C-alpha cells in the first residue's frame, strides 16, 4: 500500500506519495490558483500518475496547509506545523529547529529528539517576513524571483530597508531603484529585512542546531546565507524544500494507517 500527503499552501499545492517503508515514490508541485480544492485534486492525480498508481492504492491521505480543509477525499487534516516538523525530521534526522518561510506565513518550529514539535512561533496577518514580501519586492525591481539569491551575493554595500510593512517597503524599494541604487545592494537589504523579522521568531523559540529550512524561500541562496549569518549556524536545505510539508503529511498518513490497523 501507499500513503499520500497533500499540502495546500497559498502559492503551491504539493503532493508526496510514500511506500510502506516511508520512502518517497513521487511528488508534484502545482500552483494553487484560485480554487484550492481543484488544485489539490489535480496535484494528487498528477502524483498518482507519476508513481504509476491508482487512487485505490493509497491507503491513507493526510491534508495539510491552509487549504487542508478543502481536500474532501483526505482521511485527516493536520496542521502544517506538525507536518513540516515531521518532514524536516525525516530529511535531516538531527533537525531541532525548522525555519519555514512560505508564501503567506513564516514559522519557526522547535523539535525535540525524536521529531516531536515542542514549540513554534508563527508570523501571520502580515506579509512582512514571508515569501509574498520577497515576491512583491522582486516585482518592484523587475527581477526574477529565482535571480534574487545569486544577485544578492554581488552586493557591495547592502542597503538598509527600514520599513517592515510590505506596502511601505515596496515604495522604499521603488525609490531606491529610481535613485539608481544597485539592485544587488537593494536585494541584500531585502533579505536582511526578512531575516530580521524571522530572526525575532527564532529568538523567541530559541535556536537549537541542527537547523533545517523548508518552504519555497529556502531555494533563495541569498536568503539562506543571510539567515546563516544571523544564526551563526549552517542550515540544512532539502533538495526540494517546498515538499517538506507534504512529505511530513505522507509519513504521518503512513503512521496513522498503521496505528489504525493495530
Amino acid at each position, binding site marked *: 500500500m501507499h500513503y499520500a500527503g497533500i499540502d495546500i499552501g497559498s502559492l503551491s499545492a504539493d503532493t508526496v506519495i510514500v511506500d510502506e517503508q516511508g520512502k518517497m515514490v513521487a511528488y508534484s508541485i502545482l500552483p494553487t490558483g484560485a480554487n484550492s480544492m481543484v488544485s489539490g485534486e489535480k496535484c494528487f492525480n498528477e502524483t498518482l500518475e507519476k508513481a504509476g498508481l491508482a487512487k485505490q492504492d493509497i491507503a491513507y491521505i493526510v491534508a495539510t496547509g*491552509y487549504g487542508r480543509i478543502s481536500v474532501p477525499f483526505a482521511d485527516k487534516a*493536520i*496542521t*502544517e*506545523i*506538525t507536518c513540516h516538523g515531521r518532514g524536516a525530521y525525516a530529511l535531516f534526522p538531527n533537525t531541532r529547529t525548522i525555519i519555514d518561510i512560505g508564501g503567506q*506565513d513564516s514559522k519557526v518550529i522547535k523539535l525535540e529528539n525524536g521529531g*516531536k*514539535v*515542542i*514549540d*513554534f512561533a*508563527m508570523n*501571520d*496577518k502580515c506579509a512582512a517576513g514571508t515569501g509574498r514580501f520577497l515576491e512583491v519586492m522582486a516585482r518592484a525591481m523587475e527581477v526574477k524571483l529565482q535571480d534574487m539569491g545569486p544577485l544578492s551575493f554581488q552586493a557591495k554595500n547592502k542597503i538598509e530597508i527600514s520599513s517592515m510593512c510590505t506596502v511601505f517597503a515596496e515604495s522604499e524599494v521603488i525609490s531606491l531603484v529610481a535613485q539608481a541604487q544597485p539592485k544587488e545592494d537593494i536585494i541584500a537589504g531585502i533579505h536582511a529585512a526578512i531575516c530580521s523579522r524571522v530572526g525575532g521568531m527564532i529568538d*523567541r523559540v530559541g535556536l537549537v542546531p541542527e537547523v533545517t529550512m523548508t518552504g519555497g524561500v529556502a531555494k533563495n541562496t541569498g536568503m539562506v546565507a543571510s539567515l546563516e549569518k544571523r544564526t551563526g549556524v549552517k542550515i540544512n536545505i532539502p533538495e526540494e524544500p517546498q515538499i517538506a510539508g507534504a512529505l511530513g503529511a505522507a509519513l504521518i498518513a503512513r503512521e496513522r494507517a498503521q496505528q489504525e490497523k493495530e
Partner: protein
Amino acid sequence: MSMLEKYFADLEAALKNKLDEKTTARRRFIYEIARIGGRMFDREWASAWTTVFVPFEILYAMGVAGNFIEFVGAMLAGNGMSRPFFEKAEAEGFSTDSCSYHRTIIGAARQGMFPKPDLLIGSSFPCDGGVKALLRVGEIYDKPVFLLHTPYEQTPESLDYLVKQYRAMIAHITEQTGRTLDPDKLRRAVHNNNVAREHIVQALDLCKNAPSPARSDDWKNFIIYVLLGGDDAAVDVARIFHEEFRHKHEHGIPGLPGEKYRLLWIQNRIQFKNNLIRKLEEDYKANVVIDELNYIFWEPMDESADPLEELARRQLAHPLIGPVERRLDLLKKMAVEFGCHGAVNPSHWGCRQSGGARNMFKETLAQAGVPVIHLDVDCVDERNFSEGQLLTRLEAFMEML
C-alpha cells in the same frame, strides 16, 4: 426606548422564558447580568460607568447601578454590534492600536448609544487605557470622572490610602446624585460576597476534577459577576453554579463528554462569535477548565470589621496590580491545581498587560510543564480576525500536546 435599552429588556424577557423552561447556572447568571444592565435605564437607580475593577458593593449600597465599560464593549462585540462604534472612534482619531474594549465604548458614547450616566468612576488598574477611555467619555457627556488610585503594595499605608479614596468616592457620589451610603446594605453586600465566594470556591474546586463538570463556556466571562456587587442575586447565582456542578460531579456527568485535554485560559476570552472553542471541544476534546480572571484570589472578608477596609484589602490583593510575579505565581498555581495540559493566551491586541508579560507566562508555566500558545488576536474587533490563521495555531498547539 433606545436600542440598548430595548436590547436589555428583550434579553431579560427571553432569558426569563428560558429560565422558566429550565434553570441552568449559566442562564441564571446571564439573566441576572441582563437585569443589572437594565438598571442603567431605571431611574430608581443612579447609573455609573466604571472601569472593570471598582468596588461594586459600595455602589450597590448607594443605589448606584454600575456597568464597567469593558463589559459593555464585550457585549456589543458578542452581538456583532461594534463595527460602527469602532469606525466612529477611529474617525475621531483613536488609534487602532489601542484596546478595542475601550475604543468601542468611545464610539458608542459618541453615537449616543447610552443614556447619559450619572457618574463616571475609574480605577487606575488593570490598565491606564480604561482610565483614558473614561476621561474621554467624561468629555463627551460633560461629566467629571472620579478616579481610584490603587497603590502597588499591600501595606497598612496603602490600605489606609485606598480607604480614604473610597470615602472620597462616596462623597463624590453623594455630591453628584444626592444618594448616601446605606451601611446596612453595605454590610449585607459584604456578607453576601462571603457566602457567594464560598460557593464559587467550591464550584471551582469541583472543576479541578477530571473530567470537569463544567465545559469551556460555562464559566466564560464570569468576571462580569462582579457587577452583581453583593446583591442577593449574587448569592443565588453562585449557589446555583455550585449545586449544578456538584450534581454533575456526583452523577458522573462531565461538562465535556470524553474530556481529554484541560486548558487554562489567560486573561479574557474572544468576545465575538467564532468557532475556536467549538473546534477545541469537538475535534480535540479539549476543555477550558479555568479562566485566569475567574479565580478567587481573595480571602473571606471579616464581617465584623470596617467593610470599606475589607473591600480595600481585597482590591489590594488583586493579581493584576503589584509586581507581575504575583500574577505569574497565581497562573502557575491554577495550572497545577486544575491539572492543565496547556494554556491559551489570546494576547489581546492593544493590551499592554498581557502583551508585556507574554514571555513570562510562557517561562513560568513551562516550569509547571504547561506549554502556552499566544494567539495574538483582537478579542473584540473582529475586523482583525482571521479564523483560519488562528485555527492553524490552535490546532498545531493541540497536535503538539
